[in-house]
């Protein structure tokens, strides 16, 4: 899951090296904490959160395959 978020995000941002994903696994859910360079926040959120929504949709599909719930938090 962590790897998937990295793959999705690194090609969208200007500073791929600053992309950090932290995975916190609970019994039935996974929380992913995404950190990117301050300048890249817009690149992962998008107008009205459109990009963030697309990223969440894709990771949800991957999580559903493993019968898990997944939460993506974008941390400033």
């Amino acid at each position: 899951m962590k790897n998937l978020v990295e793959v999705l995000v690194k090609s969208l941002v200007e500073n791929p090296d600053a992309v950090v994903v932290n995975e916190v696994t609970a019994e039935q859910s996974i929380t992913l904490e995404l950190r990117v360079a301050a300048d890249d926040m817009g690149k992962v959120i998008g107008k009205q959160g459109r990009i963030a929504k697309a990223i969440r949709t894709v990771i949800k599909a991957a999580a559903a395959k493993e019968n898990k719930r997944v939460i993506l938090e974008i941390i400033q």
Partner: protein
Amino acid sequence: MKKVVTKGRTVEEAISLALKELDTSRENVETKVLELPSGGIMGLFRNRYAKVEVIINTDLCKIAKTYLNNIVSAMGIEANIETSLDENVLSIVMTGQDMGILIGRRGQTLDSLQYLTSLVINKLTEQYVRVVLDTENYRKKRELTLKDLAEKLAHRVISTKKKIELEPMNPYERRIIHATLQKNNKIYTFSQGEEPFRKVVIDIKKTS
């Protein structure tokens, strides 16, 4: 930087200046000569310099393919990905098992993947490239479903004389509904609401 325009005493000189500026080599670029050095007419309009435009060639097909391949394998799905670039449309078709997961409910996942790929591609291009991602002929099937739905609802509006609001759809899907019902002169269609909840409304035409 994807494109530079440089001047030199010869075409070759201008190109090599551009390559230095772009920090790349000759096989990665496309060049276009804008002006040639000329003597002009009787010393007038004399042009001492060659002017060239040098554009970095990016293999968009390959970039899209690699991006999606990485995503799909990180999801634990095996897929074969074919790409083709025609004019400004990049078409991508995925085949394999588990394609249902990549489509998602009403194509949500497919649309998200398409949107993300389009962002990655258009970050690299000067001119907008439309990215169309498909698998198992989903786009065509969805189009037929929407056309059927449009016709069915149009009939209902005509017989009940009451307007019908459809569920929210993306611009592409709304366009299919509008286009399908455009020639029907008993009803008219319009969209209302804000993205991403914008929806089509079918209403009866008032005969005056």
